[in-house]
C-alpha cells in the first residue's frame, strides 16, 4: 500500500472499520514507514486526548430551575385547557340548539353551503362581542318579559348563552390576528 492510501485509511483503521486484508496491509505499512507511523501515533494521540477530556460538573441547581420553569408552564397551561374544553362544549351546545331552533321555527332545511359565511360572520363578531350580545339578547329578554316563555324562547336563550361562551372562549384562545385569519379562511 502507498503512503497516500494508508493515510486515507488511518481513521477507519482507528475505528476498526477495515476488512482483515486492508487492516493487515495498513499494519505492515506502518511497521515499515516511519512518517506514516508518526501520523498514526498523532491520530491515536488525538483520540486519546479527546477521550481524556475531563467531564465538567453540572450545576446542581439545574434540576430545580428546570422543574420551576416546567411547573410554571403547567400552571399557565391549565386555564387554557379549561377554556378549550369549555369552548368545545359550548360549540356543541350552540350547534345543537341552533338546529333545534331552526327546525322548531319551521325555517326549513338548513342550507349547509351558507354555513361557511355564517361561521365567518360569527368569528368576525368576536371583536364586537358585547354589541352582538346586546342585539341578540334584547328580543329574547323582551319575549321573556312579555311572558312568552315557550320552548322556542328558552332555546333561543340557550343559544345566546352558548354563543357567548364560544365567543369568550375563542377570544381567550385566539389572538386578534389569528381570529382574522380564521375569518378569512372561512369566508373563502
Amino acid at each position, binding site marked *: 500500500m502507498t*503512503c*497516500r492510501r494508508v*493515510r486515507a485509511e488511518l*481513521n*477507519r483503521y*482507528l*475505528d476498526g*472499520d477495515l476488512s482483515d486484508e486492508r487492516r493487515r496491509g495498513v499494519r505492515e505499512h506502518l511497521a515499515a*514507514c*516511519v*512518517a*506514516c507511523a*508518526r*501520523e498514526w501515533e*498523532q*491520530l491515536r*494521540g*488525538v*483520540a486519546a*486526548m*479527546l*477521550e*481524556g*477530556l*475531563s*467531564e*465538567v*460538573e*453540572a*450545576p446542581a441547581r*439545574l*434540576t430545580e*430551575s*428546570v*422543574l420551576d*420553569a*416546567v*411547573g410554571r*408552564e*403547567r400552571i399557565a397551561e391549565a386555564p387554557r385547557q379549561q377554556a378549550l374544553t369549555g369552548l368545545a362544549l359550548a360549540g356543541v351546545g350552540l350547534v345543537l340548539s341552533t338546529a333545534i331552533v331552526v327546525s322548531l321555527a319551521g325555517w326549513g332545511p338548513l342550507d349547509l353551503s351558507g354555513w361557511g359565511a355564517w361561521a365567518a360572520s360569527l368569528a368576525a363578531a368576536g371583536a364586537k362581542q358585547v354589541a352582538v350580545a346586546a342585539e341578540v339578547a334584547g328580543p329574547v329578554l323582551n319575549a321573556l318579559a312579555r311572558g312568552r316563555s315557550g320552548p322556542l324562547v328558552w332555546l333561543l336563550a340557550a343559544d345566546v348563552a352558548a354563543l357567548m361562551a364560544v365567543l369568550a372562549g375563542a377570544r381567550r384562545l385566539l389572538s386578534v390576528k389569528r381570529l382574522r385569519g380564521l375569518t378569512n379562511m372561512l369566508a373563502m
Partner: protein
Amino acid sequence: MEFDADDRLVHQTLAGDLKAYGALVDRYRKRVYNLAYRMLGDRERAEDATQEAFIRAYRGLRSYRPSARFASWLFSTTSHVCIDHLRRRPFAAVSIDEPGVRPATAEGIDADPPAAYGRTETQAQVHHALGRLPDTQRLAIALVHLQGLSYEDAAEVMGCPVGTVKSHAHRARTTLKRLLTPQFQECVP
C-alpha cells in the same frame, strides 16, 4: 434496564408526575450539560442550553416514542438547542483558568500541581481546538468521543446516515491532529 427506567419515568411524567421528570433531569443533567459545554464553549451558555433542552424535551415529551432511546432523543433535542445558540453566537473560547477545564481528581486537589497544570493546559488546548471545528464536526466528535456513543447512535441523534457521521468525525480528527500537532511530517516513500 436503564432504558426501561427512562420509559417508566417518561410515562409517569406524562401522567402528571413532575417528580418523575425531576428524576430524568437528575439522571441526564451531567451528560446534557457536558455536551452543551463542548458544543458552546463556556459554562454559562452550557447551563442556559441545558435548561432550555430539558424544557423543550418536556414540551415535546408526547412525541417521544419508546422505540427510540430516550438518551438519543434527549441528545438530539440538546444538539438542536446548541445549534440555535451557535447561530446567535459562535463557540466561545474558554479561559484556561475557568474551573471547568481543570481535571477532576478523587481528592478534589491534584497531588502533583505541575503535572496537573500540564494536563489542564492540554485540556484547554483540546477544548480550544474543538471550537475551531465546524459545528457538525464538533457535534460528531462530542457524541462519539466525549459521550461515548456508537456511530449508529450518533447518527440517530444527528438525524443523518452513519456514513455522514463517520465522515464528520474523520475530518474533525484530521483537523484536530493538524491543530494539536503543528509539526506535520512529510511522508518518506
